């Protein structure tokens, strides 16, 4: 029984390694195999040196809330069931222009609506956890 959640195609070649990483509990970032520059979201060519060689680096998994929203209905049924919930964008501590959309939770198994939105602030430190939804592991974030 699938959840009705919107999920990535984890076999799409450009980002498959990222999703393999989340399944292992690792927050990866795509890096150029030649010049080493990080890029997010993943793409087939390095925009800095035009190499198609790719490497996947493990990040600290630590960052700060860059922005957040609180969606309310009308929404797709699986999301309406937990609305209002939070969605956040996190900037990585070691590379602030590397940003990951996610959700703020209290634990990997937590719901995305369990935190009072009034307590969420831009700049709050967070670290990544990995929540299983159907057969995919999504990065989510808990306060550090």
């Amino acid at each position, binding site marked *: 029984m699938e959840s009705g959640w919107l999920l990535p195609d984890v076999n799409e070649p450009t980002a498959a390694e990222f999703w393999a990483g989340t399944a292992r509990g690792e927050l990866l970032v795509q890096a150029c195999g030649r010049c080493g520059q990080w890029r997010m*979201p993943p793409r087939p060519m390095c925009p800095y040196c035009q190499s198609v060689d790719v490497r996947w680096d493990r990040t600290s998994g630590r960052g700060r809330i860059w922005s957040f929203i609180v*969606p309310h209905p009308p929404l797709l049924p699986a999301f309406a069931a937990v609305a209002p919930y939070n969605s956040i964008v996190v900037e990585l501590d070691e590379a602030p222009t590397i940003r990951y959309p996610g959700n703020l939770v209290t634990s990997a198994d937590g719901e995305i609506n369990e935190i009072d939105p009034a307590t969420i602030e831009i700049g709050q430190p967070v670290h990544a956890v990995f929540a299983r939804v159907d057969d995919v592991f999504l990065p989510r974030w808990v306060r550090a």
Partner: protein
Amino acid sequence: MAEVIKDKTAVVGIGQTAFGKGLPDTELSLACQAIALALDDAGIAPSEVDGLASYTMEQNREVDVARSVGLGDITFFTQVGFGGGAGCGVVGQAAMAVATGQCEVAVAWRARKRAAAASRPWAQARARIADNWQWSRPFGIIRPVDEIAMLTRRYMYEFGATRDHLANVALAFRKHANMNPAATMGHREMTRDDYMDARWISEPLCLFDNCLETDGALAVVVTSAARAADTPHPPAWIHAFAQGLPAQHQTMTNYFTDDPLRGPAWTAAQRLWANADVGPDGVDVAQLYDAFSPLIPLSLEGYGFCARGDGGPFTDAGAIEGPDGRLPVNTSGGGMSEAYVHGFNLILEAVRQVRGTSTCQVPDVDVSLVTSGEGVPTSALIFTKDRP
């Protein structure tokens, strides 16, 4: 190269259907009606049309439109991508085609029924996501309003914009709609309390920060200076045109660049003002794309009407209200209060301001700006009343 198109073409005809929800006519019928009305307004026979331009999201194919309306042999046709960012690009590319001799009479149009399945891609999404949306939708950032709300929260944090500034936008456009009998919200007034009490859609954005959902169609006729000399209405001269797709930009979910709040408006503005004889100070009236209220302060900044971060305070004290504000914006009510047809209604209002026929007519308009979607690869046009 701007001299090749500058002041060489004009919009000489405009046409629009009624706006509403659940209109009985098909999208194809609406498109044909708007085009026929625009040609009639221009005094040009359908058989003279030899150029077509619309959006990649337009569901009506050129062949079906052309053989329904009875257009002539078409020698130029094109489409522009990225939804609401396309509108001015559609008209601008038609103008380029006329100016470079690829056609003589071009029609640009947009027809849309919001109830149509293809019109709301986010609501159709069910399969596993293999493209850029896999970095937002699995995290509940699903609808366009969610995508822009994320940028809005950051904008408010970095520059101090407030909900009162966003209310200024919503209230100004509603005031303009209340003067416009064709506007969907023509008879519905709005107070600041109405705005502040409205339900949330995606915090920090409420119901009245969103555009309408509208069925309808609009079209314009673009032709050469020679052909424009023989048309019944004053031509709206196409003085300058630009598109904008910034380096590293990601459409809608532009969260990944060094400076995500420096959006496509900035890129289009560089080319637009470089190609124009006027700058922001010379603009008499502006139609700024308003799928969501925060796009107005972002566009005011991007197109250089104020300094970076001052777009919120710019809207204070009636500055964007017509007909007498410092810079009247969206004088027909815009996407938020007239109709949301991917911004094409803004283009017709920009033409009406040059003709002197707006229901919120700004006095002595010489220069009329219109922009397309901010937050997506975009475009902009400057119409002028007089040709140098």
